[in-house]
């Protein structure tokens, strides 16, 4: 895509240059007409053709550089949005969630294991007692 975009940039550049060239030749033609006093003659066909073609080429190139078109519909760009991202309010983020413990690095695991053993009667052991 990057290579393609520099191709289209080249197209836009060439189109703008051709447009400028056509404008310059039209101006030159006008001054020539004034010098030879033939002011009733219209612009030569090739200058007109060059102007139109370079305009079309520039427009086409710009459309390719401009990026993805969006739908006119205001609701369409929300079609893929979900509550996962809508519910997050960055200014109100809380940090007292279980991520503080879950993502703790493994070096700290031994201390949590010790804490578990210190609990008087963990639930799973109580369940086993019932079975007996």
């Amino acid at each position, binding site marked *: 895509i990057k290579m393609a975009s520099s191709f289209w940039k080249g197209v836009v550049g060439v189109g703008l240059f051709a447009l400028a060239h056509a404008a310059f030749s039209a101006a030159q033609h006008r001054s020539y007409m004034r010098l030879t006093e033939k002011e009733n003659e219209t612009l030569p066909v090739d200058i007109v053709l060059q102007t139109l073609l370079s305009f079309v080429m520039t427009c086409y190139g710009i459309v390719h550089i401009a990026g993805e078109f969006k739908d006119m519909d*205001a*609701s369409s760009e*929300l*079609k893929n*949005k*979900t*509550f*996962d*991202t*809508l*519910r*997050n*309010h*960055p*200014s*109100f*983020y*809380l*940090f*007292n*969630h279980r*991520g*503080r*413990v879950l*993502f*703790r*690095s*493994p070096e700290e*695991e031994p201390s949590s294991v010790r804490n578990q053993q210190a609990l008087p009667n963990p639930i799973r052991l109580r369940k086993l007692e019932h079975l007996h």
Partner: protein
Amino acid sequence: MNTIKKYVFYCIINVRHAHSWKAHDVAMASVVKREKMASVSEMYDVGWEEMRDKLRKWREDNCRNSEQIVDVGEELISEHASKLGDDIWIIYEQVMIAALDCSRDDLALTCLQELRKQFPDSHRVKRLSGMRLEALERYDEANKHYDAILQDDPTNTAARKRKISILKAQGKGTEAIRELNEYLEQFVGDQEAWHELSELYINEHDYGKAAFCLEELMMTNPHNHLYCEQYAEVKYTQGGLENLELSRKYFAQALRLNNRNMRALFGLYMVSTSVRSMSQSVQQTG
């Protein structure tokens, strides 16, 4: 034959050896896993520009995938800092908040110190240091930080919102609601705050007021199907025939805005069956 016996004996010894080391291996494996996964760019075969663009996309979409942000961001900061230019400061902020989520206090402190060096008197950086104190559960110090910011600049919305978050973290739901209401009286257009208030009301089971907040959001964002759908869900939860009728209308509206919204479709089905059974029972008794 002898060599085969020796070979088999050798294998058996190794297997037994492996068993006795199993417990140690499990502990080591997590450390080794960390080292192996150290390089995101190697694992996913992406360059630093793609990593930076991914971070920007996550920032704009408000994604809270903190583990991923920390992995990608840490590598960007440590290895490609010079190529990032001025983008690095906002990446520091993003990575710091993600690091607080993942309990990576070391990384959060480094990011904060870099930001402090670059922007010594900035309110935004002070807010970040307040957030770090909140993550360490030092709420009184964090409150003092935010009060200092507000004394300096009474219109600073970020500090006020953080104070409300502290109240929420401490479990003082009603006070948080009161403060947020006062905030919204002054700053009526703050969509994030309205949505937060609706969530607080839902936690307190005050569905009428939550519906009011969602109505405000729907007024300012008429094309957003998610607000319609959440409003319809709150009305459905409130119950009663009028609320169910209203809920059905808003589920239908959400579907009109986005016909791929599965939750709204299911909600429409649920509400319609509830309304039918309710009106049937009303007919039988009345």
